[in-house]
């Protein structure tokens, strides 16, 4: 798991991951790229991350992937990310394509639901919490 200040250098990170696994004998490498779209007048998105719980979440996914002979990788931006650049990339390496295709779907969906990351719109230089696009994490409401 890798965190970077600002937009991700997608080509560099994907190339690095390819090099890291070049001799691991995986037959499938499936990358996912999340890019900030221009919509609703935003200039950028901005992200807060709570790293200790994100690390635990990611380690649990790494174990799940390992049980299927695969590995997952991810990188996320911290702070401001301008439109048309990337804030999140991930990938699955597996011996055969089916496991990788299934895992990238499950991994990215669970990432959206349970990774401790908070998104803000940057509009006219102001940072506004993306309340309408945010999802309560599993177990939310225990204190209410």
């Amino acid at each position: 798991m890798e965190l970077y200040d600002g937009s991700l250098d997608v080509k560099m990170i994907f190339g690095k991951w390819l090099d890291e696994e070049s001799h691991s004998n995986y037959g499938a490498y499936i990358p996912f790229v999340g890019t900030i779209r221009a919509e609703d007048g935003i200039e950028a998105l901005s992200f807060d991350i709570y790293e200790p719980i994100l690390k635990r979440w990611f380690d649990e996914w790494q174990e799940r992937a390992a049980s299927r002979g695969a590995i997952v990788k991810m990188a996320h931006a911290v702070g401001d990310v301008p439109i048309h650049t990337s804030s999140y990339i991930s990938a699955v390496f597996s011996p055969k394509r089916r496991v990788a295709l299934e895992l990238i779907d499950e991994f990215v969906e669970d990432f959206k639901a349970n990774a401790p990351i908070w998104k803000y719109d940057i509009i006219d230089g102001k940072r506004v919490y993306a309340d309408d696009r945010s999802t309560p994490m599993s177990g939310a409401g225990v204190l209410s």
Partner: protein
Amino acid sequence: MVRVEFLGPIARDTIEIEATTLKEVSEHLKRDDSLVDWLPKCAVAINDIMVSQLDSRLEDGDKITILPPVCGG
């Protein structure tokens, strides 16, 4: 004493309170009007481990983390 940290958009300073269970933390936070809208939507961790039981026991010095709705990517 336990420490209660509020993450992301809640934008509040960390507080320290006396509590021996998560239920006592809940009772304390529910008295704060500015948190009433947040609490039903927030998840909780004790010492960075997610929990879902209100009777979870707390030790002196524990860190309680309040996590509002998320949206990575």
